[in-house]
């Protein structure tokens, strides 16, 4: 049953991705990226990565679509997306990235592999799974890892988000100042 669901979702992802590449309308493309994220979120839920699915649904399908539409509203009514000149170059770049990912995928440990890092007592992942209940006392291991074991990483991520807000504001406020000077 879930095998069928995997297949249907993965095929739907490919169809949406191909459709996205073909689209010339930016508004439709923004909506379709949101739909792509929603499909990803459903897929993450099926493979039991609920925290990732939650984030994908909230950020990918929800907020980033709205922000994309906000950015689109700054553009003129009809913006033509330029035609790709170097089609063979673009295609070979996409194929090269796909080949690299396919090459790297078998290095991931198989599901339930006894030699994977989670099942090695001398690796940190073992400690996260087996000791976090005693050390941190939080049932959701994802929260323990993100907020405590990997607290420095999350501090960095929070700073990245803050910097992103600052950068967008600086860019858009900077445009205003230049326009104001032109008017004088």
């Amino acid at each position: 049953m879930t095998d069928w669901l995997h297949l249907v979702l993965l095929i739907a992802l490919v169809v949406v991705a191909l459709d996205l590449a073909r689209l010339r309308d930016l508004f439709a493309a923004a909506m379709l990226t949101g739909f792509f994220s929603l499909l990803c979120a459903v897929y993450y839920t099926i493979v039991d990565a609920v925290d990732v699915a939650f984030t994908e649904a909230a950020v990918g399908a929800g907020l980033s679509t709205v922000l994309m539409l906000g950015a689109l509203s700054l553009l003129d009514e009809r913006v033509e997306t330029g035609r790709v000149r170097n089609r063979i170059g673009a295609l070979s770049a996409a194929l090269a990235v796909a080949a690299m990912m396919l090459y790297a995928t078998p290095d991931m440990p198989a599901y339930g592999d006894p030699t994977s890092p989670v099942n090695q007592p001398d690796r940190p992942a073992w400690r996260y799974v087996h000791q976090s209940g005693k050390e941190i006392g939080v049932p959701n291991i994802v929260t323990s890892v993100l907020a405590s074991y990997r607290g420095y990483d999350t501090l960095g991520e929070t700073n990245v988000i803050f910097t992103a807000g600052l950068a967008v504001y600086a860019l858009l406020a900077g445009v205003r100042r230049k326009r104001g000077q032109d008017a004088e």
Partner: protein
Amino acid sequence: MQSDVVLRVVSKFLIPFILLFAFYVQFHGDFSPGGGFQAGVILAAGIILYALVFGVAASFRIVPMRATQIGAAIGVMIYGGTGVVSLLRGARYLDYNALAHDPVHGQHLGIFMVELGVGIGVASTMLWLFYSFTSHKLRRDGQS
């Protein structure tokens, strides 16, 4: 912004639940999926929905641009400050064991504070991004 009556009524009905769900995700993140980041995004999404239906001017009256900027900085400072507190209590940076007498209590307190910082920071920054785009458009349309 003129909008549909159905849209107004339905969103007015939904927004309190969206905001409440954000707080649930924030404070229940220890036990269920989610945490500060997701809660912040949901909170911002609730306010953005309000802005989309009732106009950005109305949402500026609830959460002004200035508040989102200050909130974004405060969120990062709560996170970094938690680390400084553990430094002051003689432990390493962001070592929550030192925050209370019992290490597990310290971990709970540390995670709570850190997630609170992430939640405030993310909610404010997402709203700040949205405001930056929309107020730029308002300004530009007003000029031309």
